[in-house]
């Protein structure tokens, strides 16, 4: 991918190569999922390709494909280095594939770094925009700090492990929690929480999401975030054995804080882009519930959540990119100008709010029921439900603006039929996930419970 820019100057060709590449990735991944291995590389047990990880990959690759199809054209407007943008996105996907399937802490670290460094560049890719530069620098500084913490945590865990190993299966000594082990675990928790923008480590998120070119915000807020979540759940599920009761309370507090800060701050935003940044924090809060529960339901749920959230958010961002004005007022009366855009956008927003008949409902349902199934933390379930009710406020503000307010909110250019068609397909997927999530989950349940 990286070299396609040398061979051709045609932007269209670059984009098509990217689309074909993604499609191949997706097919290969799906084949793996069905048990047909196209080729095997000895990874020395560093990576472990199980269903959970492969499904995470499928969602990441699939949503990237949809994302490139929807917004690929808009990347051209960021700058001239289209091929490089695609190359960076593919690097990120490489990192995604590592952190969804890692089997040792080293691989986790490597994956996180491979994801982060291209993202720093993408954030600053709008070189002449001061906000974009500021966002990139901020992201870089805070990101490296959290990576440092992660490394420290890994070192502690290495030291605490009975045999001196990075393999996550062997970290747990089976004898109880030593202080060094706990410190390492908490440092990992903090740095991962930073990466998924959980409160109180979320401060970079609004600025970075707002400052980065909107096409890349969409990428960061969806694909990157949910794959790190898949890695997050994988790490805490496998690595820390019986120590769960010791750290669950920290996760619960982080979850509650994330839900509260994300939802309440989103209410006060004037720009839809910034609102979506806070909403992504709020959604992260919901996904953290899976980390708290860590049972079969939670693992199914995080996959479903990843799919529902990514598709809806990619859709909304794709529409947002085309808008002239990013404030709520900019959406006034959009329904009259662009009925298809407004209708699909409504479905995406309803899904994010978790209204039944959309994928978002079952995603939230799974998160809530995973925690209820544990029998503890019912207060957190009720709290998250209250926060979900708050979220209706800011999601519906967009719907109100589009449908019920007079105005001439419009897009910069008339969107093409292909773009609209894709949006309708996306909306259809959201609704199908909402009516029968079985299509995605039937494969999961079979294997996860035996896993």
């Amino acid at each position, binding site marked *: 991918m990286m070299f396609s820019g040398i061979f051709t100057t045609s932007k269209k060709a670059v984009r098509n190569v990217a689309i074909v590449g993604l499609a191949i990735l997706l097919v290969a991944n799906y084949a793996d999922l069905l048990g047909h291995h196209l080729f095997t590389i000895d990874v020395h047990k560093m990576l472990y390709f199980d269903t959970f990880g492969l499904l995470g990959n499928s969602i990441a690759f699939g949503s990237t494909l949809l994302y490139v199809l929807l917004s690929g054209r808009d990347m051209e407007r960021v700058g001239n280095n289209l091929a490089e943008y695609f190359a960076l996105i593919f690097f990120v996907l490489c990192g995604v594939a590592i952190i969804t399937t890692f089997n040792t802490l080293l691989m986790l670290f490597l994956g996180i770094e491979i994801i982060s460094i291209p993202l720093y560049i993408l954030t600053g890719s709008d070189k002449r925009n001061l906000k974009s530069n500021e966002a990139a620098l901020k992201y870089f500084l805070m990101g490296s700090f959290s990576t440092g913490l992660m490394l420290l945590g890994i070192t502690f865990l290495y030291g605490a492990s009975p045999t001196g190993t990075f393999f996550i299966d062997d970290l747990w000594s089976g004898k109880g929690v030593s202080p060094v082990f706990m410190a390492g675990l908490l440092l990992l928790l903090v740095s991962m929480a930073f990466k998924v923008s959980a409160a109180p480590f979320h401060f970079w998120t609004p600025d970075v999401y707002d400052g980065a070119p909107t096409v890349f915000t969409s990428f960061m807020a969806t694909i990157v975030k949910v794959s790190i979540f898949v890695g997050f759940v994988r790490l805490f599920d496998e690595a820390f054995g019986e120590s769960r009761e010791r750290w669950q309370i920290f996760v619960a507090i982080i979850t509650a804080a994330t839900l509260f800060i994300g939802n309440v701050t989103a209410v006060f935003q004037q720009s839809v882009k910034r609102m979506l940044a806070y909403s992504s924090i709020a959604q992260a809060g919901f996904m953290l519930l899976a980390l708290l529960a860590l049972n079969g339901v939670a693992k199914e749920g995080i996959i479903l959540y990843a799919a529902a959230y990514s598709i809806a958010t990619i859709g909304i961002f794709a529409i947002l990119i085309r808008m002239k004005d990013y404030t709520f007022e900019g959406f006034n009366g959009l329904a009259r100008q662009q009925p298809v855009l407004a209708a699909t956008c409504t479905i995406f927003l309803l899904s994010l709010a978790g209204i039944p*008949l959309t994928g978002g409902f079952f995603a939230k349902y799974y998160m809530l029921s995973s925690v209820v*199934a544990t029998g503890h933390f019912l207060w957190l379930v009720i709290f998250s439900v*209250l926060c979900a009710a708050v979220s209706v406020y800011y999601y*519906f503000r967009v719907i109100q603006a589009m*449908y019920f307010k007079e105005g001439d909110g419009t897009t910069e250019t008339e969107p093409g039929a292909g773009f609209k068609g894709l949006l309708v397909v996306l909306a259809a997927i959201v609704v199908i996930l909402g009516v029968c999530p*079985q299509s995605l989950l039937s494969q999961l349940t079979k294997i996860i419970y035996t896993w």
Partner: protein
Amino acid sequence: MIPVLLIFIPLVTGLIGFLLKSEKTARGWALLSSLVTLVVALTGAGVAGGGVAGGANPMLHADVAWLPDLGSRFAVGLDGLSLILSLLTAISFPLIFIATWRDQYKRAWNFYALMLLSQAGLLGVFLAQDALLFYFFWELALIPVYFLCSQWGGERRIAATFKFFVYTFLGSLLMLVGIIWLYFHTADHSFSMASFYDVHNHIPNSDQTWVFWLLFIAFAIKMPIWPLHTWQPDTYEQSPTAVTMVLSAIMVKMGLFGVIRWLAPVLPIGTWAWGDTVSTACIIGMIYASLVAMKQDDLKRLLAYSSIAHVGLMALAIFATDSTGMQGVMIQMFNHGINILGMWIVVDLIERQFGTRKISELGGLAKTAPGLAILLVIVALGNVALPLTNGFVGEFLLFTGVFTSTATAYSLVFTVVAAVTIILGAIYTLNMIQRVFYGPVNGLTSRAVDISLNEKVVLSVIVVLIVFIGIYPGPVLAMTKEFSEFILTRMAYK
């Protein structure tokens, strides 16, 4: 078979409705669809005949796999309770469409399509025999109504309907948590009605008492019960009248229905433990709403508050847990729907003719529009429960139920105070009739013309129903008897 048709006819016709790009076609289409639904519902009533609770008649039930991994099935069925409410829904919608035939809407096809979708949601709520499916339809009924009110309502519509939406959505989410909690405590991890009715054998009584509130808040908001009623007057006032009719005639019944089907039999101890608390709230709400209604000048707000008072009485009777009272609730849900529909039609007529709903600006209509006056008086008498009207049958059963209740120690107090609100109800209703229809004719009302054919048809149907049920309540009593016994058995009172 029949319940599936009842849900899918409005659903499919509603979705098609979005594609019709002419007001006339859309209106005709909606009426046609609602009439077909009515025929199906009446067929259902015919098939059900007398015995509706027990039999596994394949015409009346459908049960197919939906989410096997979750233990949720697409199970729908007609029993006494769902039959009477489905009939109410199926009768109301064509009447609403005919009565508001002359109302003009921008992009009317969307309006009618959303109306049909809300009908599908409502019927789904009443027919669902699976808790998750019930929750699904509960929300499906809410979303179209939100759009209907926000798009076609009055000046302050956005704020009012938003309040309505957040209130009910918050309630529903709490209910969802409650449903999930109960699901994990069922013996076979299933959402089916049978498993839910069995769950109280598997959970301690202390848990029942707090789970009760998770579910009850959702239902109480929908009814609404004081102090959760504040969304209602604003929403009724700001909604287009056709939607207000749906809201007050049918949607408030969702709350009562929810308590009867998904709360009282599922958590009998919780229901019993909080019975007095809820009853007290009902009583306070009834008195409060009646007093406020007396002071209202706006006809829509007056009816909104009177609706709170009536629903309060029905809720009171549910918590009295008496078989007569339970039957009364079911019958009165139907009656109240029909009566309030008649009242709204009159309000809509007045507003369209005179451009105002202020009682103080009206007067002497009986002289200029005698047909309207006669029909309204009959509807209003039904609403204040005069003998020979349907309201009397319902409220008589309700009061008997509350008075003879063995579930509470305060049945006498509740009965007496509730009876006071009936008197208050008579005062504000008759006062309203007096000031709107009698008294001097003023400049505004002298131009009145009497009602036209479509309104005459609708109001006559309503009046016939009112008088018929008032004189010969046998069929509805038969329809509800078996089910009320069934519920009380579940609540361990029999």
